[in-house]
């Protein structure tokens, strides 16, 4: 068996190492009983037997790259807090909502104790006095599973006062979101957790590690990142870095959706698996739908610039993908076959980001809306050639300078590497432009084809009589 009715989407064909999905094949993998029977809470026990600093060092030496999007190593992040400022908090980012992404939802639904154990290890190692586990509102099953698991863990003495009879005491509070994409940004998440509108805070100069929740040092870690820690502490950093590559150790969860024969969520070896492996491999997606040609794909969530078949042989490695003009982001890959209407597909993503703008920054609030309207006009067949220039001009007001894009030998284009410059506080504005820029740069002919030949209609109010 390779897929399971209780974990729709998850596929584990082939013989790959499993770090975070080792219990997905068990229908009752979410219960404490099964978790304990399969090595659960051994990482916590191992951690508590050592000084906190030693556990921190172990995580740091394993280079656990953040799995939320930015890819910043967790152990390094923990080290950025000021030395003598307490209390410090852990905020768990379970607000997964990047288009195309889903792994955190499955991790919370299928293995909530693994996440809880990861939170406890992080809190112990980094000296975090309280944990807030923020789950996206539209995921009630994840709430139910994590809530039930927390109740079990409290009753068993894994969470709360004097954990396992030691001086380690920490509460984990389950917190609910209520539907706002931007809250996935860590400072917006903190604002939301303070009971406010989810508007990102200006950074730099102060990152949450220095000034976060209630002004205190705060670590914001993604669900998948934390879910790696029990295995890491149980098996050691050397075993962890033996998987994957030096710069991208361990595994990653990726969701491949769209026009493939077998879309799925896979735990893959980090840094070596290529996009070609994923799309055409027998253990993965088994080719493009109906044997058609691949046209383009989004490699790292809706915010990421697009790739074409020319980038198929890139491995799932952040630096290489960044140099090639995009990003791995949250591990969400969306595949478009040759039948795809490129401007319409780009419009869908632009509409998403325009809709999700929190409204703080003018370039995003106004620019995103402009991008959406112009794209809609073009898709409806009412666009003009001037609209294409206008799209890029609006984009320049959000992201001045060269925007990252893939190379194209067909078009004679060199890649523009990541990152981009931005005039906004967070990445929502640039994300509205990314699909437009990619589509227009790589498939300009499709836009041209949508533009009807039409004559310029002059503004005639007040000047009509001059013609007579």
């Amino acid at each position: 068996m390779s897929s399971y009715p209780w974990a729709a989407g998850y596929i584990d064909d082939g013989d790959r190492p499993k770090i975070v999905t080792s219990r997905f094949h068990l229908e009752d993998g979410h219960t404490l009983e099964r978790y304990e029977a399969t090595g659960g809470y051994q990482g916590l026990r191992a951690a508590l037997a050592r000084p906190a600093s030693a556990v921190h060092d172990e995580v740091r030496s394993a280079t656990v790259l953040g799995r939320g999007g930015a890819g910043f190593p967790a152990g390094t992040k923990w080290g950025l807090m000021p030395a003598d400022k307490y209390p410090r908090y852990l905020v768990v980012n379970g607000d997964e909502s990047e288009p195309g992404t889903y792994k955190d939802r499955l991790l919370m639904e299928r293995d909530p104790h693994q996440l809880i154990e990861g939170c406890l290890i992080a809190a112990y190692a980094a000296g975090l006095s309280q944990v807030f586990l923020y789950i996206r509102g539209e995921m009630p099953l994840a709430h139910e599973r994590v809530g039930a698991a927390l109740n079990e863990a409290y009753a068993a003495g894994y969470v709360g006062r004097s954990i396992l009879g030691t001086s380690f005491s920490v509460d984990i509070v389950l917190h609910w979101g209520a539907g706002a994409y931007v809250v996935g940004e860590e400072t917006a998440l903190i604002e939301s957790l303070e009971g406010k509108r989810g508007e990102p805070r200006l950074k730099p100069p102060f990152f949450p590690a220095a000034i976060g929740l209630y002004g205190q040092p705060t670590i914001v870690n993604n669900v998948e990142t934390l879910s790696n820690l029990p295995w890491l502490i149980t098996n050691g950093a050397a075993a962890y870095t033996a998987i994957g590559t030096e710069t991208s150790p361990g595994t990653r969860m990726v969701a491949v959706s769209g026009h493939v024969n077998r879309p799925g969520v896979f735990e893959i070896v980090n840094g070596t698996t290529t996009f070609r492996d994923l799309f055409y491999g027998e253990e993965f997606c088994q080719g493009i739908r109906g044997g058609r040609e691949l046209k383009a794909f989004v490699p790292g969530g809706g915010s990421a610039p697009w790739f074409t078949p020319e980038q198929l042989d890139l491995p799932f490695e952040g630096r290489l993908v960044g140099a090639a003009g995009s990003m791995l982001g949250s591990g969400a890959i969306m595949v478009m076959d040759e039948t795809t209407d490129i401007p319409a597909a780009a419009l869908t993503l632009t509409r998403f980001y325009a809709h999700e703008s929190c409204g703080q920054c003018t370039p995003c609030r106004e620019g995103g809306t402009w991008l959406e309207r112009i794209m809609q006009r073009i898709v409806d067949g009412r666009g003009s050639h001037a609209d294409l220039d206008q799209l890029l001009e609006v984009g320049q007001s959000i992201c001045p300078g060269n925007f990252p894009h893939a190379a194209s030998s067909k078009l004679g284009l060199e890649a523009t590497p990541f990152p981009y410059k931005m005039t906004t506080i967070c990445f929502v504005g640039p994300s509205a432009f990314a699909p437009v820029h990619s589509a227009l740069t790589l498939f300009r002919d499709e836009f041209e084809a949508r533009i009807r030949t039409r004559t310029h209609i002059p503004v005639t109010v007040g000047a009509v009589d001059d013609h007579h």
Partner: protein
Amino acid sequence: MSRLNEANVLLAKEIIGRYPRARSATIPLLHLSQQQNGHVTREAIAHIAELVGATAAEVLGTCTFYEMFKMEPVGKYVVNICGTMSCQLMGADELMHHAEHVLGVKAGGTTADGLITLEHAECQAACTEAPNVQVNYRHCHRMTTESFDRLVDDLRNGRLDNEIPPHGTLARNRQHIPADKAAGVASPDAPAAPAWLTAPEASA
């Protein structure tokens, strides 16, 4: 009665007690009020403001930021059709068109019998199972026009009452932190290094 009822006030106080600052409970309490009334009422806003020590304007400001909070009554079932990229690539536009036709309302509208509110939604984190629909945020995968019709029929005939609670109820269970097990809130007003950092030998 659209302030929180007596049982929910107790629950609200329990929730507030978990946070170093009461205002952090704003969103959980808005969910609680929506669970009680199906939508968020003005009276509930004022009541929550009293409970968390904020102004009603502040709570309203928070409330209106988040899409899940409905300030007007909605159907017993909110049917969200995902229209983001993966679902769109797999036929979400056609599904929405069909749904509007079958239900006789445009996206955003509620059927005349008050049973179903139809909404256009963004990514529901089930992209490999596209196109997706959520009913009160419960997933329905790989929807077709036929399976959508069956879903509506099941909702109208109460066949999903056990699986899908009425709008406003998210999780059907709650976290409870037993008083004798609680570590207690870590207040910024009481700055102290955690015990296990200052006395690592105690945990050995």
